[in-house]
C-alpha cells in the first residue's frame, strides 16, 4: 500500500477556504466610557498562529475576551469564517462558541471534577455520545497532551504545567476550529514552556487549527507566531502587524515594538546603564526605578 493521500482534519488543504478564519474590523475596546483601544483591524488565515503582544495592562486579555464573546462588542465587528460573531443572535453565538477552544491562564479546570470529568463535560453537554464513547475521546485527548493515566486525578493533585496541558485537552474536547490561549507560558519553567510551545505547533500542524495566543513571553512569540499584532497602550491602537521575526528587523516597525521584541528599555543602554545625555536627576531615578 502506498502512502495514502494526506487528508487533513476539516478537509484537505486544497479545500481550505480562501477567506480569513478570523477577521476583526474597527473594534473598539473599553470599560464603560473609558476607551482602552480603538480601531483594531486584523485578520488571521485558517491554520495560522497569531500572537497578540503588548505591554502589561495594554488590553491583550481584554481583546481575547471580546474574541471569545465574554465581552459584548459595541463598536466594530468580529467575523469568524465569513460569519459575523458580534452581530449574531444569542443562539448563533453559542453555536459559534462551540467551535472555539479556550485555554485560560491557570488552566481554569473545575476543581471538584477529575481531569477526565473536566474533559468529558463539554462532550456530555453537546453530544449524545455514550459514556464509554466519551471515555475513549477523553483518553485520546489526555494522551495528546501527555497526560495518559491521569484521568482520575483532581486538578489540585497535579502541577501547574500539567494543569495547563489538561486545560488544553479540555479546550480541544469538541475538536475546535480555533484555539485561544491566554498566557500559555505564564508561571511555567522554561523547559515546560518550550514543550508547551512545541505541542501547540505540532497540534496545529497535524490538525490545521487556527490559533490565537495572548502572551508577552518573547521566546514563545518567536517560536510559534506566524503573525502578530502589537497593542500600544499609549496611542490606544495596534501599532504593528506581521511576523515578529520581520517586525524585529531595523526599520520594519515602530521603535516601541523593536524595544519590546529586543527586550531593551528605551530609557537605558542595553546593559542597563542610563544614557549619557540623561541628567543627574534622571540617572538617579532610573537607577532606583
Amino acid at each position, binding site marked *: 500500500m502506498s502512502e495514502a493521500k494526506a*487528508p487533513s482534519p476539516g478537509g484537505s488543504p486544497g479545500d481550505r477556504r480562501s477567506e480569513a478564519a478570523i477577521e476583526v474590523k474597527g473594534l473598539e475596546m473599553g470599560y464603560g466610557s473609558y476607551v482602552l483601544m480603538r480601531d483594531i483591524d486584523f485578520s488571521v488565515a485558517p491554520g495560522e498562529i497569531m500572537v497578540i503582544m503588548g505591554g502589561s495592562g495594554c488590553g491583550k486579555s481584554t481583546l481575547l475576551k471580546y474574541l471569545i464573546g465574554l465581552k459584548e462588542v459595541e463598536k466594530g465587528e468580529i467575523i469568524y469564517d465569513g460569519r459575523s460573531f458580534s452581530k449574531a443572535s444569542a443562539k448563533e453565538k453559542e453555536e459559534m462558541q462551540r*467551535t472555539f477552544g479556550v485555554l485560560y491562564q491557570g488552566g481554569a479546570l473545575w*476543581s471538584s471534577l477529575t481531569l477526565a470529568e473536566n474533559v468529558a463535560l463539554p462532550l456530555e453537554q453537546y453530544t449524545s455520545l455514550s459514556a464509554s464513547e466519551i471515555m475513549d475521546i477523553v483518553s485520546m485527548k489526555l494522551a495528546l497532551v501527555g497526560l495518559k493515566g491521569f484521568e482520575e486525578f483532581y486538578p*489540585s493533585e497535579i502541577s501547574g504545567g500539567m494543569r495547563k496541558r489538561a486545560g488544553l485537552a479540555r479546550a480541544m474536547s469538541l475538536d475546535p*476550529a480555533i484555539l485561544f490561549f491566554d498566557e500559555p507560558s505564564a508561571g511555567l519553567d522554561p523547559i515546560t514552556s518550550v514543550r508547551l510551545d512545541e505541542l501547540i505547533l505540532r497540534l496545529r500542524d*497535524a490538525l490545521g487549527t487556527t490559533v490565537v495566543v495572548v502572551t508577552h513571553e518573547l521566546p514563545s512569540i518567536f517560536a510559534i507566531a506566524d503573525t502578530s499584532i502589537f497593542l500600544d497602550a499609549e496611542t490606544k491602537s495596534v501599532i504593528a502587524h506581521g511576523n515578529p521575526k520581520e517586525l524585529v528587523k531595523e526599520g520594519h516597525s515602530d521603535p516601541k515594538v523593536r524595544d519590546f521584541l529586543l527586550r531593551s528599555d528605551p530609557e537605558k543602554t542595553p546593559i542597563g546603564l542610563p544614557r549619557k545625555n540623561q541628567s543627574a536627576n534622571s540617572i538617579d531615578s532610573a537607577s532606583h526605578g
Partner: protein
Amino acid sequence: MGTTNSATSTAAGKVTFGRSGRNLVLRFEGNWNVRNTRHGEIDALFSELDREGAADGLQVDMANVGSWDTSLLIVVARAKDWCRKHTVNFLSESLPASVASLLAISEEVPERKTGRELKKSSSIFTLLGSMTIDVFAGVGTALEFTGDAVLSFGRILRGQAAFDWRMFWLTMQECSAQALPIVGMISFLTGLIFAFVGAIQLRQFGAGIYVANLVAVAMAREMGAIMTGIIMAGRTGAAFAAQIGSMKVSEEIDALQTLAISPMDFLVSPRLLALFFMMPLLVLYSDLVGILGGAFVGLSFLGISWSQYWNQTIGSMGLIDIATGLVKSAVFGVIVAMAGCERGMKCGNDAASVGNAATSAVVLGITWIVASDALIDVIQEVLNL
C-alpha cells in the same frame, strides 16, 4: 479538530477491511465526526478481525476520507493496539502524515502506570473503621487547635502576639450591630412560638398568666443562647471558614508564616475574642426581644395586661437564669469561632474545599452548641444551680 469541512463526500465515516496479499487493509471512507460515528459497526469490525486470524501486517487506506476528527484517531489507535495484541505488524507508513503525527504525540508520553485506580467499593467494616479513624483524627486536630488558641491567648495577654486589632474591631461590628436584625427577628418569633405552645396547655387550667414564666425562663436559660448560637454559626462561622479558607488558597497564610507571624494570633484570636465578647450582649438582646414576642401573645390572645405580664416575668426569673444564658453564650461564641477558623485553616487548596470548609464549619458549630448546652445543663443539675 476541524469542525467545518468542505470535503466533496458528505457520507458518514465508515471503515471496512480486506486483504492485500498477506496483509490486512483497513479502508476508511467518508467524513469522520464524533457525533455520527457508528460505534456498533466498529466493534463488529474488530470482532471480525479477531476471527480473521493470521496476517503479516495491517495497513491503512485513507484515500477516500473527507474530513475527520478524534473519532478517526480513536479507531486508528484501537487498530494499532489490536496489532500489538495479535502480534501483527502495524504498517504506520501507510498512515497520512497528519494522522501519524497525532498518533505519535499521543504515544510519546507513556501511560502513567501508577495512576490512581478507580475507587473500589469497600465493605461496611472497612467504612466503619475508616470513619472511626477519621473521627479520632478530627478530635485530635480539634484539640491541637484548641491548645494553639490557648497558647495564642497567653501570648496576647503577655503582649507578645501580632494581634490584628483592625480585624478585632471589624469582627466585633459584624457580629454585633450587623447581626441585630436577624437575631431580633428569630428571637421574637421564638418567644412567640413558645408563648403559643404554652398558652394552649396552660389556658386549660386557667393558668394563662404562667406563659410569662415559661417564655422568660426558656429564653433566658436556653433558647436565647441556642438560637443566637445557631444564627451566628450559620452567619459568622461560615464566613470565618470561607475567609480563612480563601486566604489559604491564595497562599496568604503561608505569607504570614514566612514573616514569623502566627496565623493563630493574627487571624484566629481576633475573631475568637470578638465573638466571645459580643455573644453575651447579643444573647441579652435576644432574651429581651424573645420576652417581647411572648408578651405579644399574652397581650393579644390571652387578655393579660402589660404590667401583669412584666411583673410575672420579673418574678419568675432569677439572676442565675440570666447568668446561665450568658455563660452559655460565651461558650457558644468560642465554639462558633473555633469551628469556623479551624475548618478554614484546614481547608484544601481549591474552590470546592472552601465550600466544604464553610459547610462543615456550620455543621460542626451547631453540633457542638447543642452538645455543650446539654453538658452545661447536666453540670447545673448536679451542682443544683
